[in-house]
């Protein structure tokens, strides 16, 4: 009796122990699996994220390095009207418009390519407006270099051709659009004497001229580009072509 009484509890204890350890094992196993699962939910997205960001950065770098080849735009619209230095149009035209621009400014490029042909056709070619371009180089060192380069082109009598070519070859700001080497290439496609141009740019022949022009614009109140002045008015910016043409119309006799 006693043995039979003693045995079952012993066997029971053993099975209890076994069950416990089996349960503990299962618990451990479950915990291990949960840990793995947790790790999966962290490691997989982290690895994928790093790969995705890496590919994005690589693609960005590659697209930025592909700086477009220098192009020569059609400049016949400029050369078909009287032009002298920075002034385009009849020197005796009743309305004098000044435009302040920065060759790195995308808004200036947009104005030049979308609206200026209309102004040229309707007001400059018809002898109503005399258009003057002045530098307000403020975006960065390449703005100043481009403005100096345009001055060097002016020395060779090709300011407007060079001016148009600068805008046509604007690829972004402070990213090498107007590095000295690229400015020389632009000078070449414009048909300048490249040696004279190079020394003009290298020697900083017009550095002070550009600086003075920018200071003068600042003192007149120019804060953004392109800014305009009609017959000596305070500089203003535009949000549509009509903003400018209405001012010109008002100034016409």
């Amino acid at each position, binding site marked *: 009796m006693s043995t039979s009484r003693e045995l079952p509890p012993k066997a029971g204890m053993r099975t209890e122990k076994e069950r416990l350890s089996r349960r503990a094992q299962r618990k451990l196993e479950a915990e291990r699996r949960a840990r793995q699962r947790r790790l999966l939910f962290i490691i997989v997205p982290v690895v*994928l994220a790093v790969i995705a960001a890496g590919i994005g950065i690589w693609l960005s770098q590659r697209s930025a390095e592909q700086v477009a080849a220098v192009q020569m735009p059609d400049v016949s619209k400029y050369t078909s009207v009287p032009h002298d230095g920075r002034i385009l149009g009849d020197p005796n035209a009743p309305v004098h418009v000044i435009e302040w621009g920065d060759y790195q400014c*995308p808004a200036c490029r947009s104005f030049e390519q979308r609206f200026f042909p209309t102004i040229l056709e309707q007001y400059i070619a018809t002898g109503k407006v005399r258009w003057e371009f002045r530098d307000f180089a403020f975006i960065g060192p390449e703005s100043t270099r481009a403005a100096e380069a345009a001055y060097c082109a002016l020395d060779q009598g090709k300011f407007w051709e060079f001016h148009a070519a600068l805008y046509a070859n604007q690829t*972004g700001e402070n*990213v090498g659009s107007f590095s000295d080497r690229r400015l020389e290439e632009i000078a070449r496609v414009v048909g300048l004497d490249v040696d004279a141009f190079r020394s003009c740019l290298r020697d900083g022949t017009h550095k002070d001229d550009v600086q003075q022009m920018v200071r003068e614009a600042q003192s007149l109140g120019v804060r953004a580009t392109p800014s305009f002045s009609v017959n000596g008015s305070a500089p203003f910016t535009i*949000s549509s072509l009509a903003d400018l043409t209405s001012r010109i119309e008002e100034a016409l006799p």
Partner: protein
Amino acid sequence: MSVRPRWLLLSIVLSLVGSAVAGYLTAVAFDDALLVCGIGDCSTVQNSPYAKIGGIPIALLGLGMYLVLLALGIARWRWWQQREFLTSAAAGIALAGTLYSAYLTYLELFVIHAICQWCVTSAILVTALLLVEGWGLSRILRGDAHRATGASPGARSRRQQPAP
């Protein structure tokens, strides 16, 4: 409807704001009628050669990312039981966005030398999303999200309802 954790609501709100910011930047990227270029506000960044990948404006990619995060946020609100996988995906996307934004901010500061305010706003938003999603993921994986928020008990009680 069982209670959803507050961080999920925060994530949805941040994704919404991010979508709005990226939407604005995308509209600017497609607008070539930009007519004024002011000091410190010149679309310099958006006009840099870095602003596009294969002709696609980065802003558009950013908009896509915020919309996916928003969709993941709404999906978790609706199907909370899928939270582990969905939060893991959201955290991964937010991490990729944060890393790429860090690179873009580096470009703005040291290469383009111009800051685009809305781009910086977007970088801050995606970093905040990473923090929120990372925190949410850690709570979910630790399994204490429901205890603290009562989200799961809610789900459980719904399951228990038909029993009696």
